[in-house]
């Protein structure tokens, strides 16, 4: 068997030559995974900025003691909506953007398994987050913390519409995530190019699979928890009604059974991204690929058995506490394995410190700090001291910001040239990196000692004489440094779209299949589905690499990276497929469809109707939208099933 990989010949010209439809309508009706990925990414980044503004408002309020910049109630809404926006509207969809755009390319697929379902997931997500943020703009945002502990959130104790926006909005978003994840699971298992065995899949694709399985299972539990709360709030059932004997722990168990896997839903994809970035910029294969895969599987599996460590303070008894303390500590093992393998990947490598690489390295360091404070929480007696203090806030931000966000930025700098055809500015990138790294440590590290001093979370202000003043001012200062870095990042994203350096198919000299095609890829991805013979198709048969010659140290030199023995950029494409449309190549692509957006609108109408059911006055009549939504849903399901040109 030949050791060379058969890959589609790379193209260095732009894909503009073939007649791809443009215009707003073509984006609304698109079923192309790449366009949907871009829409996910843009929407999620906008909501990242919204969540960031909410964080800045929180930090302005806390900058000085006894501040009255926002009221206590608005503060409650701000920290709740900050968490929900970041988790459900920004970070999860940003990972979904990469699942959509990159994963099918990495496995050599034409598209995802169900293109229309993919579009539906996006539209449901978009309408869901809009729905949810409308509440915030009316100062009716959820105000109970993102965990929404019942019975505090039942109608008796939260009479306003705030929590209705929570229960309905999160059901919509959960539905969207489950649909998208089913699609990804089937795509990964069933749509791989010939020869792409499971253990040849790029590590990012592996982590996508694990994340999708976690979403499909965990979100289902959450859906029921929220449905029960919705029934309590809207129809008056008794699930969380303590006067009728309800157990306040029911919600906590159901919520954290979802809530803890959710933490892994947010970090496992990032582990995959970083595991792509580090080998590329170290010019070395990933150290311990198999172990990385299985430790990822183990993290996903153990992630299901640790939820009650969020509940040590409720008094579950010594046996439950010990079990969950041990299982939590156990998760440190596969995570530690991953950290050491990343270090092993860089060890002895020919490292290029691009912005993507800097963010990946910073990810390892910052995530490890967050992981270590996580193990501190795992010890139940120690956790009791830390519960509800800023120590926990510090921990979770080191995991989510130092982990998820830094890793996502690494992934964006890495894959941006594939998506747009242009490199992001490295100069702005470095400024972004250093401001973000310094800013986040100024912001989140002092929270550790604030928490140890006993500053409680989720309280809108603090007294003057507690010794919290200087540290809080420093933290607020750090938050604005992060904001400055993010602003540079946003400018970089927009500026580089048209003005960045033209990237070519494989600007970094990376090893996986997505780099074998032009940037941006043609609508049909691969003119010819590649046959895969190894885990790193583009590094096979690379003579300079086989000779052990480190190369590709600078961007300029990457032009010299060889691919199948020929210099990148000089590969001759015999068919000149880049100029050919899908039709000329005889490739069947599913036609655009407007039923996904119609279906999503119908689903949203149902939820809008349910909100107005609890409103007084004339607007109460709008609850009839419920029936409009149901009718629309039935019609669109049938139209969907019988739409010509799609497989059924």
């Amino acid at each position, binding site marked *: 068997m030949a050791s060379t990989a*058969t890959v589609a010949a790379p193209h260095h010209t732009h894909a503009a030559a073939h007649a791809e439809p443009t215009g707003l309508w073509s984006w609304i009706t698109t079923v192309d995974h790449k366009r949907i990925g871009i829409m996910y990414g843009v929407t999620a980044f906008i909501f990242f900025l919204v969540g960031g503004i909410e964080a800045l408002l929180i930090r302005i309020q806390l900058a000085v003691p006894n501040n009255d910049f926002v009221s206590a109630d608005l503060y409650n809404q701000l920290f709740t909506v900050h968490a929900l926006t970041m988790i459900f509207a920004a970070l999860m969809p940003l990972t979904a953007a990469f699942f959509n755009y990159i994963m099918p390319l990495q496995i050599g697929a034409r598209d995802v398994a169900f293109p229309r379902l993919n579009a539906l997931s996006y539209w449901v997500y978009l309408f869901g987050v809009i729905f949810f943020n409308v509440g915030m703009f009316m100062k009716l945002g959820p105000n109970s913390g993102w965990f929404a502990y019942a019975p505090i959130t039942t109608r008796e104790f939260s009479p306003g519409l705030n929590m209705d926006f929570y229960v309905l909005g999160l059901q919509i978003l959960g539905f969207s995530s*489950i649909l998208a994840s089913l699609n990804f699971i089937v795509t990964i298992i069933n749509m791989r190019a010939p020869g792409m065995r499971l253990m040849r899949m790029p590590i990012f694709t592996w982590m996508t699979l694990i994340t999708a399985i976690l979403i*499909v299972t965990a*979100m289902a539990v959450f859906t029921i928890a929220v449905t*029960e709360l919705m029934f309590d709030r809207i*129809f008056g059932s008794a699930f969380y009604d303590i006067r009728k*004997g309800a157990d306040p722990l029911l919600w906590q168990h159901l919520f954290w059974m979802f809530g803890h896997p959710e933490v892994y839903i947010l970090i496992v994809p990032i582990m995959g991204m970083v595991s792509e970035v580090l080998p590329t910029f170290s010019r070395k294969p990933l150290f311990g690929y198999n172990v990385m895969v299985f430790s990822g599987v183990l993290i996903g599996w153990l992630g299901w058995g640790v939820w009650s460590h969020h509940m040590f303070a409720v008094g579950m008894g010594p046996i439950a506490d010990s079990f969950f303390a041990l299982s939590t500590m156990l998760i440190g093992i596969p995570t530690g394995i991953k950290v050491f393998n990343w270090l092993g990947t860089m060890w002895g490598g020919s490292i290029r410190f691009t912005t993507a690489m800097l963010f990946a390295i910073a990810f390892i360091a910052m995530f490890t700090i967050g992981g270590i404070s996580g193990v501190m929480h795992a010890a139940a007696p120690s956790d009791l001291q830390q519960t509800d203090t800023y120590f926990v806030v510090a921990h979770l931000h080191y995991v989510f910001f130092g982990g998820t966000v830094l890793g996502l930025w690494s992934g964006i700098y890495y894959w941006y040239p594939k998506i747009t055809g242009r490199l992001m500015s490295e100069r702005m990138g470095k400024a972004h990196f250093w401001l973000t790294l310094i800013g986040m440590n100024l912001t989140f590290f002092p929270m550790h000692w604030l928490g140890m001093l006993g500053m409680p979370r989720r309280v809108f202000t603090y007294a003057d004489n507690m010794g919290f003043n200087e540290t809080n001012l420093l933290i607020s200062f750090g938050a604005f440094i992060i904001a400055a870095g993010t602003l540079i990042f946003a400018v970089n994203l927009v500026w580089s779209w048209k003005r960045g350096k033209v990237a070519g198919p494989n600007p970094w000299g990376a090893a996986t299949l997505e780099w074998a095609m032009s940037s941006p890829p043609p609508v049909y991805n691969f003119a*010819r589905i590649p046959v895969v013979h190894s885990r790193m198709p583009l590094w096979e048969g690379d003579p300079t690499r086989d000779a052990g010659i480190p190369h590709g140290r600078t961007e300029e030199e990457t032009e010299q990276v060889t691919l199948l023995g020929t210099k990148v950029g000089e590969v001759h494409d015999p068919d000149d497929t880049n100029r050919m449309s899908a039709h000329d190549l005889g490739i069947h692509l599913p036609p655009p469809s407007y039923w996904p957006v119609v279906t999503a609108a119908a689903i949203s109408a149902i939820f809008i109707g349910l909100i107005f059911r609890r409103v007084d006055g004339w607007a109460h009549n709008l609850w009839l939208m419920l029936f409009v939504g149901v009718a629309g849903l039935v019609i669109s399901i049938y139209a969907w099933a019988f739409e010509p040109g799609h497989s059924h």
Partner: protein
Amino acid sequence: MDHAHALDANAPHAAHAAHIDTSTGLDSRKMAFWGFIGSECLLFGSLIATYMAYKGRSIGGPQPHEGGWTTRAGHVAEHGIFNIPLTTFSTFILLMSSVAMVLALNYTQRGDRRRSALWLFLTAFGGSIFLGCQVYEFTEFYLEGMTLASNLFSSSFFTLTGFHGAHVTVGVIYLLTLAALAWKGKIPPEKSLNVEIAGLYWHFVDVIWIIIFPLVYLIR
């Protein structure tokens, strides 16, 4: 396999939609459906867990197996609210409808459109009888004074069995649609996967009921 041969062998792939042949040989829709069923297991699992966690913890109001509670009419009930013979009957019908489903798939695969349509219809008919029994049961319960808000038992019971009933309803509509299509000859044997997937759904809904029935109705 040499390099050129790999390309040749692969050439037909370019000419077809990528999902015609899959990595596992299993149709993507079927695999997605199994994934969906996995997610549904967690949904029903959470509802069943809620019911079991609240079993016997209701304060006042109708009870499933014990008497001593006050009905809407003001009488003190002598026994629990469940009508076990009725539910046993509807359970039997639902299970038998799964047999009809198997026969429907069998005839679809053989290309017998009339029998395929007939058995699809009978499957839906069995589901409808089950639903009729559930509507009757819920109405009786309501008349005896049990509402969604009565107590922990009523909330978790109505939500769990109502959720299952909603699944059966969707299944009945699904099967009737397929029966009409089969009757028109639009489900030839090569498209029998459409019936097979409906069968997966129907059997799943049955299996869930097999779990719910003893846990909710039979165990005291």
